[in-house]
């Protein structure tokens, strides 16, 4: 039958609204160019060329986004035969991803903090002398593959948040995941744990992708389409077996939750956050979360809103589990990066409250939260890169004792970021929490919100513990040094702190953007 069908209908290229998808095309196209740079440019010039290309790409993508936004229909459009939806939430998420990607790129590009960068091609054992390492830095030994990989991951994330059918979404998921698996392992020459993290992330990620794919298959069986809107239509008036629908939904959600590191699907998070080179952790922690929750919001709102009363109870349980796993296990951590990882699990639970509210305020609150959380996280990891001993970052908490005495500015910045993560007023973290909790209460989820509040208090304890360590404890005699941040790291941290402060004090403008409109159907 199939060949006959093909013969009957001439294959027509779908109409593409190039203006709308320009940011996407720019980022992915630049990724390809970047690969060519890697192949043909001499080693000495690569770093400069790649950095320039990446920065220009992000700026150009941002610019085209802004240009499109001016005349964009407020209801949003779908293009490429309905595979991509460019609506207000997608545009907001694209902007968020580009901005966070830019901040993370600054951290990645920095070659001065970790001598010769995290991304080196050759083994550099811990006893390598400073001179050797400096030499590496001078000869530009940095593995610049990280730049095209970052661009591809970013392009995948942007597609992920705008995908209007499950197949596109799956492909985007792979496009964003594969570069990330590689990036996590890029510090393997420095620290073996990086290799372990990459393998773990890859195996578990592949497993989660399989879940997603199975869910997709079941839903296709149910609705005879992979389009989100068709699934919603099928659910409203059919006599199909609900087993397919909810089986599919369950498997699909597991795949999405995995990417968003929502507990209990979070098990990779601490290991990977700890093992990955810190700039990559910053990129992942901020951008992957945005992409995953963007997709969760779209899938839940567009495809499954009509059946929300049937699945919401389950997601209540997931949100509670996530908040408590994050908050309670975070208490026991002794490594800063692992602690932030568990904090991200708790934050995923808070985000989920906003995401399952399925109201206008729930949507705008979650979008705002993602932006705010992303910048705070990038800046926090930026600070983590600066506290070092002779053999690398001193991420063990005990070595942070008394940091305020040696470098008061750094301690103050980190304290501010921790307070933002804890959700203290006048930081963006508070406004974000307030918005999702408001949405939750408005939508009749007051008990869930109260659980969230208690989890917030528990989580506040481990943030406070770090502040106590930095300010009230005496420094260890052979403690870490705080290296002078390079211009790129300084810029990234400053950007993150400023956004955290401004969004905390004056959220109205960004809140207006986040609440600009709903999903295109």
């Amino acid at each position, binding site marked *: 039958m199939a060949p006959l069908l093909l013969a009957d209908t001439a294959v027509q290229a779908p109409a593409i609204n190039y203006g709308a998808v320009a940011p996407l095309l720019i980022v992915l196209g630049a990724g390809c160019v970047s690969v060519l740079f890697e192949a043909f440019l001499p080693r000495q010039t690569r770093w400069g060329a790649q950095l320039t290309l990446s920065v220009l790409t992000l700026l150009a993508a941002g610019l085209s986004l802004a240009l499109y936004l001016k005349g964009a229909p407020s209801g949003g459009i779908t293009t490429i035969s309905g595979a991509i939806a460019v609506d207000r939430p997608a545009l907001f998420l694209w902007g968020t991803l580009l901005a966070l990607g830019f901040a993370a790129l600054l951290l990645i590009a920095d070659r001065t903090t970790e001598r010769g960068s995290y991304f080196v091609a050759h083994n550099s054992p811990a006893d390598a002398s400073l001179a050797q390492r400096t030499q590496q830095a001078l000869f530009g030994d940095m593995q610049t593959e990280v730049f095209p990989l970052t661009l591809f991951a970013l392009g995948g994330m942007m597609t992920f948040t705008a995908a209007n059918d499950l197949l596109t979404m799956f492909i985007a998921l792979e496009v964003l995941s594969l570069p990330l698996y590689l990036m996590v392992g890029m510090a393997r020459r420095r620290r073996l744990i990086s290799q372990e993290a990459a393998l773990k992330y890859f195996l578990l990620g592949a497993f989660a992708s399989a879940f997603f794919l199975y869910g997709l298959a079941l839903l296709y069986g149910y609705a005879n389409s992979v389009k989100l809107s068709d699934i919603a239509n099928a659910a409203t008036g059919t006599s199909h077996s609900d087993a397919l629908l909810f089986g599919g939904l369950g498997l699909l959600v597991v795949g999405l939750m995995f990417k968003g590191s929502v507990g209990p699907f979070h098990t990779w998070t601490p290991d990977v956050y700890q093992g990955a080179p810190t700039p990559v952790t910053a990129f992942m922690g901020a951008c992957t979360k945005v992409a995953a929750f963007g997709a969760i919001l779209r899938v839940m709102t567009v495809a499954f809103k009509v059946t929300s009363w049937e699945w919401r109870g389950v997601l209540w349980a997931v949100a509670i589990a996530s908040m408590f796993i994050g908050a309670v296990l975070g208490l026991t951590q002794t490594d800063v990066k692992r602690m932030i990882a568990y904090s991200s699990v708790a934050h995923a639970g808070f985000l989920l409250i906003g995401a399952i509210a399925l109201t206008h305020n729930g949507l705008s609150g979650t979008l705002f939260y993602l932006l705010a959380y992303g910048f705070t996280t990038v800046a926090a990891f930026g600070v983590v890169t600066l506290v070092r001993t002779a053999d690398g970052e001193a991420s063990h908490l005990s070595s942070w004792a008394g940091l305020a*005495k040696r470098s008061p500015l750094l301690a103050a910045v980190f304290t501010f970021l921790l*307070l933002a993560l804890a959700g*203290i*007023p*006048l930081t963006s973290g*508070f406004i974000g929490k*307030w918005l999702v*909790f*408001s949405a939750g*209460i*408005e939508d009749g989820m*007051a008990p869930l*919100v*109260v659980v969230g*509040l*208690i989890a*917030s*208090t528990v989580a*506040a*304890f481990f943030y*406070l*513990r770090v502040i*106590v360590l930095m*300010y*009230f*404890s005496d420094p260890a005699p052979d403690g870490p040094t705080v290296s002078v941040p390079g211009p790129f790291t300084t810029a990234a941290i400053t950007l993150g702190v400023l956004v955290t402060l401004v969004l905390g*004090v*004056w*959220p*109205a403008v960004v*809140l*207006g953007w986040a*609440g600009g409109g709903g999903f295109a159907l």
Partner: protein
Amino acid sequence: MNISTAVSISGSGFPWLLAVILWPLLGGVIVAFFKNDARLAKLTAIVFSLVEFALTLVVLFSYHASGARIQLAGSADWIASFGVHFSFGVDGIALIMLVMLGGLTPIVLGASWQEKLPEGRSMAGFFSLILVMEALVMAVFAATDVFLFYVLFEIMLIPMYFLIGGYGGPGLRRQYAAVKFFLYSFLGGLLMLASAIGCWAYVESVTGTGTFDWATLTRVVSHAPLGTQIWLFMGFFFAFAIKAPLVPFHTWLPDAVQESPVGVGVFLVGVLDKVGIYGFLRYCLPMFPDASKTLAPLVLVLSVIGVLYGSLLAAGQSDMKRFVAYVSIAHFGFMGVGVFAFTSQSEVGAVTYMLNHSISTGMLLLVVGMIAVRGRSFKAEDYGGMAKVTPLLAGCFFLAGLTTLSLPGTNSFISEFLVLLGSYETQPVYAILATIGMVLAALYVLWLVQRIMTGPLRGKAFGADEPLVGVTGGPGAATDPLGRAKSMISDLNGREKLVLAPMVILILLLGFYPKPLLDVVNPSVGATLTSVGVSVDANQGGN
């Protein structure tokens, strides 16, 4: 944020209230820069705090007790889409708090002049944090937007956290106390936030537009069904019960007071905890009148337990700072009874108690600090017979003790009497039980005075465990133990006299002539009671 233009004050062009809030903040920032010159830092801080006191007096005199409930108000949009405003205003109750805080801060700074800070801490940081603290608490009392109130309520914790954790007692204990303080208050605050959001959602469902404006919330939410009110009431109640603190939410207070420097402790019991009682009056009663009446027995029971339990534990303390903390818990119980008895006398009593407690307990704690500076210990058993060596200090301690036990003629008496008199009308059982607290107060105060001040010279403070007087025998034995003790321990110096003098004057003045205070407070209390549905007899309360 277009505050300066948006905030204007009816009658006068200058935004005095905003100045009251921003001035100490400015002072705090400036003082923080004088890290290397402790003397300059201290002088700048005290000048700022004195000017601030003057500013609060200006606000006091531009307030017309007979006028509108909220005066000197100003407002600007903050997050317009959620109806969040940046708005301030004062009523009589808030006004008293502002003036009290304005007056207490220079005293606290003066008392902390020679504070021995932990190694590596600068006086500039200490005084700067105190000024920032003052600014934030001023703003908390003046806020007329519930969201803004919450924000300040939480932010206020941060300087306090650093004051306890960074400048407090030795070692790990102070970190423990600081974190405990923070987490207790943070949890309470978050529950309040949930309730505030609930109020917002309720207002939105009734009027169509959500707002956090206090006046609107009061108008709309006070007519909500009882069930809704009770849920919303609980969130606010937990926040304020932890802050006040009512038993069983009180355990952070003794730890925090014990580990703080004395000046910070005065702030803690004298000012910060008042936010709890103030919150009951300003938020719980007017916003949730039906819930307040329904749940009044619960609060009364907790308050009376607080009075008795606090008193008994106070009697059992050997650490004098913890003693003051438990005394405060007992007094907060009295205030709780006053607020939730819903008569105008009891309410006026509770409000004036808020002020008088700051003066009397503040003075008690300051004197305790002065004793400890001399004997290098906060343990009561390390002292004995101090009155012989330091008569002036002993006199001040005795006076602070007398006002703490509410002797007639001191300031606290009027308040405690009004609370008991008023609550006896509606809640005789609780009033009688609380009266037992007065008897216990006499017990714990007089017993402590007796242990420390009277009898023979003894204790580690004088370098001996045995009584010094009467020790004879052996060649070269102390022939003049009193003289030796006097050479070791001196009486109040000029600075300390200056610090205590205003408190002594206020104790006696308000003890004999409380009318000006009552005149300011009465109308606002009347308005609060009217909102709960209790009719107010104009002649009541003004006695």
